[in-house]
């Protein structure tokens, strides 16, 4: 299981928990698992999210591996200038 | 409107063109003479990207009517280098990284050369006020000031 830290707005879809545990070994599996377990997150995840794994931020990278002891933080999809 | 025939000199070469009476020198340089090194940033004389010399005087070519250049001498960025050799100011701008996007560079080089021709040893303050009509959004002007001063020193020594 992977413990995922949710940003504030996403917690309302997970019974106000700051962290949830899901079964996932990659970025894509994590997104799929979150949608399955917490359907309220689906619109945001489908619009786009980033994922910080051990402090490094990933976008659009399905197969990025996640290990069980990683720090995993869900973040909005970012755009820059 | 009826076109007017104009004979002038651009960068030392005799040039003839016809233009409408309300066409600006900038429009004629860019659209009729193919001299696109002079840039349009605003068209209202606020940014200095279109700086050229007319009879040795620094002007915004967007504020000069082309018909006013009858018999005049116009200097643009295309005339600054001689043959395959860059002007000291041009080379120093490259050496000092005084340009980023480069769109303001032709106008700033023309303006800087006009100053150094009159005043070979400007203070930083004189230089900053002289170039206040030439907007640069990339550099914060720091390296431009350094480059002009370095070029001025080289030109004085030459």
């Amino acid at each position, binding site marked *: 299981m992977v413990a995922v*830290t949710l*940003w*504030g*707005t996403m917690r309302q879809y997970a019974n106000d928990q700051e962290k949830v545990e899901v079964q996932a070994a990659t970025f894509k599996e994590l997104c799929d698992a979150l949608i399955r377990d917490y359907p309220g997150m689906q*619109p*945001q995840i489908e619009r786009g999210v980033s994922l*910080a794994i*051990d*402090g*490094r*931020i990933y*976008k*659009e*990278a399905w197969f*990025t591996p996640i290990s069980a002891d990683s720090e995993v933080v869900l*973040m*909005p999809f*970012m*755009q*820059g*200038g | 409107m009826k076109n007017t025939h104009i004979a002038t000199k651009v960068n030392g070469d005799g040039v003839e063109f016809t233009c409408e009476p309300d066409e600006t020198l900038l429009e004629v340089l*860019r659209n009729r003479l193919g*001299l*696109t090194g*002079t840039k*349009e*940033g*605003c*068209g*209202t004389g*606020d940014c200095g990207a279109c700086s050229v010399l007319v009879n040795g005087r620094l002007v915004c070519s967007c504020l000069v009517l082309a018909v006013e250049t009858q018999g005049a001498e116009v200097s643009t*960025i295309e005339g600054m280098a001689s043959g395959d050799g*860059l002007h000291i100011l*041009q080379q120093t*701008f*490259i*050496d*000092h*990284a005084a340009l*980023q*996007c*480069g*769109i303001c*560079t032709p106008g700033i080089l023309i303006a800087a050369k006009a100053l150094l021709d009159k005043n070979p040893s400007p203070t*930083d*303050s004189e230089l*900053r006020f002289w*170039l*206040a*009509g030439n*907007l640069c*959004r*990339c*550099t*914060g*002007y*720091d*390296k*431009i*000031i350094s480059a002009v001063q370095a070029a001025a020193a080289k030109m004085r020594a030459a």
Partner: protein
Amino acid sequence: MNYVSKIRKFKQVGTRPARPDGDDKVTGRALYGADTVAPGMLMAAVLRSPHAHAQIVSIDFSAALAHDGVKAVVTGADLVAQDEGSLRDIQENCLATTRVLYDGHAVAAVAALTLKAAQEALKLIKVEYSALPHVIEVDDAMRADAPIVQSGRALENVPEGFSQNVTYHCQFGHGDTDAGFALADEIVTRSFKTAATHQGYIEPHACLAQMTTDGKAELWCCTQGQYNVRDICSALLGLEGSQLRVTASEIGGGFGGKTNVFIEPLALALSHKSGRPVKLVMSRSEVFRATGPTVSSSIDVKIGMTRDGRITAGRAELRYSGGAFPNETVSMGAQSAFAAYDMAAVETLGWNVLTNRPKEAAYRAPGAPMAIYAVESVVDELSQILNLDPIDVRLKNAARKGSKSSYGPTFDDVGLIETLEAAKAHPHYQAPLGPNQGRGLSAGFWFNFGGNTCVSLNVNTDGTISVIEGNPDIGGSRASISLMAAEELGVPYEKIRTIIADTASLGHNDITDGSRVTFSVGLATIKAAQDAIQKMCGRAAQIWGIDADAVTWEDGAAVPAGENAGKFPPLSLAEIAAVSFETGGPIAGHFEVNADGAGVSFGVHLCDAEVDPETGATKILRYTVFQDAGRAVHPSYVEGQMQGGAAQGIGWALNEEYIYGKDGRLQNSGFLDYRIPVASDLPRIDTVILEIPNPGHPYGVRGVGETPIVPPLGAVSNAVSRAIGKRLTQLPMSPPRILQAILKG
């Protein structure tokens, strides 16, 4: 993947060679968006809304079409209607279909033999409008009774009960802020406002489009991302991506404002209708009215601090408006507001609100400068109240390796402490101040991006190298990319030429944004060079008749290694290249990646300002930028980013703002009234580059382009506030506003 495992001695990275495009740019030869022509070319002009908000009842362009020299007219009906949210918004922003949402919103476009004929024809287009109520200010637009800019656009994250103008809500943070505030000896709560500002690139948007009847098209334009232009224009014109080739011209500044598409679909549609090439160039007024700007904001900040300067809790509520179309820029403000601090309890809330302003475009570190300005102002005020040194306060609370960031993840190596210490040790910080003078300090932060990138590196038979990359060069990146290729290959910088590919010549590359180019394209270039090196080692091994594994690459040559060491003289890159046809064909390296590991960037700015108490005018006396660049590949251009960002931030702090009349129309759409800093407004901008390597890049590079615009807002405001002895809370700090604060007593 972590790259920096050993200290590497660089031979070329860190030097300052001449940029490859320098000669073209100092001679006027470089071709920007408006500098090209095509045979038979028409000139185009755009009709724009004079209303802040109105229904389009009808458009009659028959008289315009009949005008002498006019070859085509297009309206919103000529673009392919999009279903999907963001593409649909771009389509509506390029050409309105049923409603105009801001002053300057495009309604129609004309192509004619001359620009003058096109402009005359615009006046013959009869648009019947039915004016609608408008709203300009973000706080007004949040009220329940505000005019609705667009309905039905709120995302699921917006709680019920808000105006329909509120389209997005976000919340970040950790810890118990109430408990944190209870521990504080001092709490400051302040409200701030910042104006919308424009990126202010000197080159107006420009393009030249050619579309043929068989569904092929060519587009030349000034853009930060030709692939993005291709994708959007293909959709709006119903073209296949492969058939639309977009070439990025030299670009006269972007700063985020040229990440968008505005006029390109219009030019393509006009070309399609007329069967001729069409050139379309914006006027400066159009640039101000219809492109950019950044968000305007209204922000509340509350911070608690102990007597000895430890922050106990922080809270910020950010209300941003990015104009008439939804965006989520506020999420980046909410994540970055407190990024410089290691906090036990932090909470930020963000709201995006629609107003009748132009569609926001990114501007250097979008969303961060205003949020960090507000936080840094309150930290400065607390330092004043508690009589503490503002750098010591920041050092005491600075984010560092292992800190839980305000947006969630734990920081790896970040250079904030080193940057603060450099500022503290700098002579600027100790220099005496005179009357009416103040010294301001602010930290700043940006995430930095990686993203989709590909690079091809061709080894030419004469031993020179062509690097092909896909990101427009805004500030000297070709020099940096060439330096990294030269470093990795071990050949002189002069042997390399880097060019920017069109969309048909290289795979997709993300936009030049997020400070990503030196990082991501640099990474891909190094990897492409390694790919080529591997192939060259293979060729050398074949020539020598030994295993490829037994060959290494040293100083630009293949060298036999292991048991073969010394058996053959090294084969240089040029020697291998010269016989490439004989040894298996041309040699090239490639690399494609969705790059991660960009590594955040912190900066600290010091500003001395003097305020004239009679007029309220501010003079910046001294300015120093300290920033962690990870590794400065070409230090001159790193300094240039730091100086340029600082100057833009100073303009934002002191002068620049979008000013609207009661009628909702923009009143200052020119450089005379929208005043960006000129040379005589600024002092020298000193720079101190820190190099704390980013573990996510082979050379330790961090993006440097965006962070420098973040600290100036707070640094200048803190300097001015200290100079006049009053806390200022609104940007820009124009002379009347400062005078008002002084006179209020």
